[in-house]
């Protein structure tokens, strides 16, 4: 086993909670942990929704100019105005979830529990928990509360620091 001074570490701030933005932090965290790094994830603002017991993430076509789904044999994007139509965002979410399942990509629930198994430290931002009136009881077992200073103190010792 690598001794402590050789072990690399990674920290990341997770600020977004939509389905497409949920993947980068969990994929990076689980892979880094599998490669022997000490990983800390700091969840703040909409990232807090990724810690909820029951995950209900969605995507929107609004304001996502680079989003182009493989449909009808080509990649199709949607003009913003189409997202005003009731059901379009729900359809986009369903389409994304289908693609994920079809291509054998792990679900966020699976990645999240693998991260916890791999001893990834999860910190929930105290301030935004209060702001949005969440309590730790709404969240899964594992995350602890912390503030900006907790994050910064940890980040100064980490080799990789990411803002997602």
């Amino acid at each position, binding site marked *: 086993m690598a001794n402590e001074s050789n072990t690399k570490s990674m920290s990341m701030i997770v600020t977004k909670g939509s389905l497409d933005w949920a993947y980068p932090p969990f994929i990076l965290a689980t892979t880094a942990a599998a490669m022997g790094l000490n990983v800390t994830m700091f969840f703040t603002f909409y990232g807090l929704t990724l810690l909820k017991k029951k995950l209900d993430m969605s995507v929107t076509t609004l304001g996502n100019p680079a989003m182009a789904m493989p449909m009808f044999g080509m990649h199709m994007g949607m003009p913003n105005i189409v997202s005003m139509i009731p059901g379009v965002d729900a359809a986009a979410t369903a389409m994304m979830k289908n693609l994920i399942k079809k291509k054998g*990509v792990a679900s966020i629930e699976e990645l999240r529990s693998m991260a916890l198994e791999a001893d990834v430290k999860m910190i929930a931002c105290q301030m935004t928990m209060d702001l949005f009136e969440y309590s730790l009881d709404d969240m899964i077992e594992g995350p602890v509360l912390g503030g900006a200073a907790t994050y910064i103190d940890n980040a100064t010792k980490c080799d990789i620091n990411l803002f997602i």
Partner: protein
Amino acid sequence: MIRASPPKQGPRSSRGLLDSRLRGNERKNPSDTQTARNKRDDIMADVVLDAKGLNCPLPILRAKKALKDVAVGGTLEVLATDPGAVKDFEAFCRATGNELLASKTEGKTFSFVIKRTS
């Protein structure tokens, strides 16, 4: 999918019944194993992990879990269809210190043999 039998076991015969139920794992009885070994001139792994159809990061994560069941010095063979897995397993072995003994492409399937070093 993954056969986590104790790798120190010498003869393969005792794994017969379990093996026949596992997808992608053809070691049904000792004679089959012998033929298989003669056909392939490469390394026979202690544990085989079938990660076909799984995309990043699952092949690496499953391999990491599977390696825990391999004795130090033993080998794990991983079968994957994810093209990213080729570079990923090189990097994984570099980072963890495990040895990548073989990395082969057979049609759409990639196979990697990893030796656990610690």
